[in-house]
């Protein structure tokens, strides 16, 4: 087909490249600024390339943000793993063991992923105070696990729905019960779904601000809260803020670069299009 010929339409690349520029500008500024030496940093020259690669800004930003980066790391791994396990069990039952009422329960669970958390945050804080988890990281993990259940359940349910039910039935004829079918048949083929869900939960817990700012005390702040605080202060120079932003974005950026395919799948699940 003529219209499918590549050489025919060189002009298409003009808007595509312009758009790429739009998406890259903030990255450019973050990196160029980060790699400049302190003597070179000036708002007047913020678009210029560094004369030499220096790490002053990154070192200073890391010194200021290191404890908070560790808080985030300590919080996101348990949050992502626990909510994935819950999601896979729920997804299995909802896809393959439709009990009475499952048709009402599923949408009722899903609604939980769209609610504005402002509508539950006051009771959540009260609850955390009551169970003595207010201010610490375990409470934040608990919040991410519970409010992660809808999206993880949805992803696993859609994934398991595509597994032929005959597989389960065959295993039942061989004497498997509900748990051993899950353990022997579904779990071994669940790796792709686990990757999608863990990446998704990792990213959203890492990037979360609302739960973090409300539920944690300053020594337990995750990186988003610490970075925002740094940006709001008059003392810390903008170049260090830029380097700090890059450090805060790095873990999820790396995941995106190396596992982007799965990340995209997680996004699509969020649009209810598993």
């Amino acid at each position, binding site marked *: 087909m003529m219209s499918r010929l590549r050489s025919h339409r060189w002009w298409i690349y003009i808007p595509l490249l312009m758009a790429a520029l739009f998406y890259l500008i*903030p990255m450019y500024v973050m990196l160029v600024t980060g790699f400049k030496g302190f003597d070179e940093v000036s708002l007047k020259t913020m678009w210029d390339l560094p004369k030499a690669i220096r790490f002053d800004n990154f070192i200073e930003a890391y010194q200021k943000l290191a404890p908070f980066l560790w808080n985030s790391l300590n919080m996101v791994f348990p949050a992502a793993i626990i909510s994935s396990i819950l999601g896979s069990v*729920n997804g299995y039952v909802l896809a393959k063991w439709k*009990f009475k009422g499952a048709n009402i329960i599923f949408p009722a*669970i899903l609604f939980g992923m769209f609610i504005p958390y402002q509508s539950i945050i006051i009771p959540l804080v009260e609850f955390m105070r009551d169970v003595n988890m207010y201010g610490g990281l375990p409470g934040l993990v608990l919040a991410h696990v519970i409010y992660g*259940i809808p999206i993880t359940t949805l992803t696993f349910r859609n994934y398991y729905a595509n597994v032929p039910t005959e597989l389960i039935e065959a295993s039942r004829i061989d004497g498997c019960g509900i*748990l051993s079918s899950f353990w022997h048949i579904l779990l071994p083929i669940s790796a792709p779904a686990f990757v999608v869900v863990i990446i998704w939960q990792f990213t959203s817990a890492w990037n*979360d601000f609302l739960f973090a700012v409300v539920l944690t005390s300053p020594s337990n702040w995750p990186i988003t809260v610490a*970075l925002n605080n740094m940006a709001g202060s008059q003392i810390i120079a903008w170049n260090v803020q830029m380097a700090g932003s890059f450090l805060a974005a790095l873990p999820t950026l790396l995941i995106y670069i190396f596992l982007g395919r799965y990340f995209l799948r997680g996004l699509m699940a969020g*649009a209810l299009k598993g």
Partner: protein
Amino acid sequence: MRIKRETVLSVALVTPSILAIAVFVYGFIGWTARVSVSQWKGLLPDYTFVGLENFIGLFNDPRFHIDIRNTLIFTIIFVIGSLIIGLGLAILLDQNIKGEGIFRSLYLFPMAISFIVTGVVWRWLMNPAAGSRMSGLNLLFDSLGLDFLVSQWHTTPYWGIAFIAIPAIWQMSGYTMALYLGGLRGIPVQLREAAQVDGANEFQIYRFIILPLLRPITLSAMIILGHISLKVFDLIIAVAGKQLPLDVPAIYMWQTTFDGYFFGRGAAIGILLLLSVAVLIIPYLIFTLRTEAEL
């Protein structure tokens, strides 16, 4: 017997999650609703019933009027901007071009970054300082001879909130592109070929065949983007801090509750936010799940 036992077991497996959602989503919404009709001010809970006083107070509150106006302006610009850029890029990427994968990744990567990081970087890009202190995009435009683009950004009187939509579009338009691209890939090639055989030109094919087929995607995208913009909060804080001209309900809620201890009023804002999201999401959920069941 075995069947019965297994049914019980299957229910038992999902019970912890169902209970968690029942308590932490629905129970807590109920609790917030109760706070929203109470006179709770200050550190100690006070559930004395005051009816709709908090809600009436909000609707007479000039700050809440600013919030509603800002949310509307932000939503319109953010949703329309993301849809247009997303659709445009998806159509361009669908032309069988070289390096499609690279372009797609470049457009999508902002999704991996937090609103806080986006906000901090854009705070410096949208620096409104003028004259010799000019920096950020203004400096870039100025040195490229594009002076007419130099702007006061989010400090523009009255319309500042519109500029906050720019970083939001930066972050979410790639996602919209991915939604549309998925939709375009789902359209059978035969449909286009048949139209070409009938003598339709490229423009007509898009106008009369492809765009109508993408309508459900537009609807999903509008609902997803719309509910994000109702909740927008951290992006504004990171770009501009808390300031009245750029206030939105989510920021008001946070400040009045956790800085001012007006729990009753904060809860009322939370409930209003929930209702506005529910109006969008509940029909969407019902519709999507019903279509899914029919397949």
